[in-house]
């Protein structure tokens, strides 16, 4: 009867109930039941830190290289912009495919095929941007020309 008038003390009460009446249960309750797992078997929790850091470093690099490339145009900076954009968008799309094209949802083959297709598209993007830089005016100049037209 004393329990019903102490609702704010409920959480600590539940803890002591479990520990007093069923101590074997409190140990199990401490370990959470996991219903999720990494999208790819290669993406283990400890590996992702380096990738995460690389993503942020590249993002900051991209933020820096864009204004510099527009202020001091040069072929080297054109290629740097193309490389940074291609890798940044590759990692972004990889996250999208890993989030939505999950094995449970689309099957193991399609989930792996999506990641493979992403690698193909990013490689194509990098090659096409480099081709544009080499044979044509270059990415920075192209944007400037669109604005001058």
């Amino acid at each position, binding site marked *: *009867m004393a*329990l*019903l008038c102490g609702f704010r003390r*409920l959480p600590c*009460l*539940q803890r002591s*109930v*479990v520990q007093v*009446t*069923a101590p074997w*249960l409190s140990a*199990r309750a401490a370990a959470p*039941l*996991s*219903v*999720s*797992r990494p999208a790819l078997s290669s993406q283990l929790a400890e590996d992702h830190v380096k990738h995460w850091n690389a993503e*942020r470093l590249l*993002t*900051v690099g991209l*933020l820096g290289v864009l204004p510099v490339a527009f202020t001091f145009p040069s072929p080297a900076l054109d290629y740097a912009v193309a490389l940074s*954009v291609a890798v940044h*968008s590759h990692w*972004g*799309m990889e996250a*999208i495919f890993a989030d939505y094209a999950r094995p*449970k949802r689309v099957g193991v083959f399609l989930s792996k095929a999506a990641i493979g297709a992403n690698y193909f*598209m990013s490689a*194509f*993007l990098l090659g*096409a*941007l480099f*081709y*544009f830089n080499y*044979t*044509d*005016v270059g990415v920075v100049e*192209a944007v400037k*020309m*669109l*604005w001058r*037209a």
Partner: protein
Amino acid sequence: MALCLRLASRSVAANCSSRILQKSLLTTSSRSWAIQQYSAEEWERKNEKMGRPLSPHLTIYKFQLTSMLSITHRATGMGLHFGLLCFAGVMVLLPNSYPYYLTLLAGSGGGKALLVASKFIISWPFFFHTFNGIRHLVWDMGKGFSIKTLYKSGYAVVGLSILAALVAAVV
């Protein structure tokens, strides 16, 4: 809550005068402690086999600035990626150079309007993604997570991106 009721019933049972009520209260409490643990796969397979429906999520959750800006960040990133992919792919396939096609499109009928429109359509996703990206980097440093700051920075990103795109479109 259920645990408390069981404990209450146990303490009540200890002081209970009625023998029948005491017995039923004690046996119910001791029986209900059994908990079965499934692995993730067993749990999912069991639910599939039983044909249990999934609770509604996207269809019922309220649209909020936080979630809307998050998905827009993803969508603009995807849009910029595929836009660039199409542009670069087309430039690989087409025979002439970029200046040739630019003068062709700019000089065509309605060229001025086409230019302003294309400048806005290219600028807004770029500016939104860039400004919201900076907002993300600030979060990665561990700052700006209070609800007030989230909404302030969110509205700032939307406003600044529209402003920047409008300026870029008419310049």
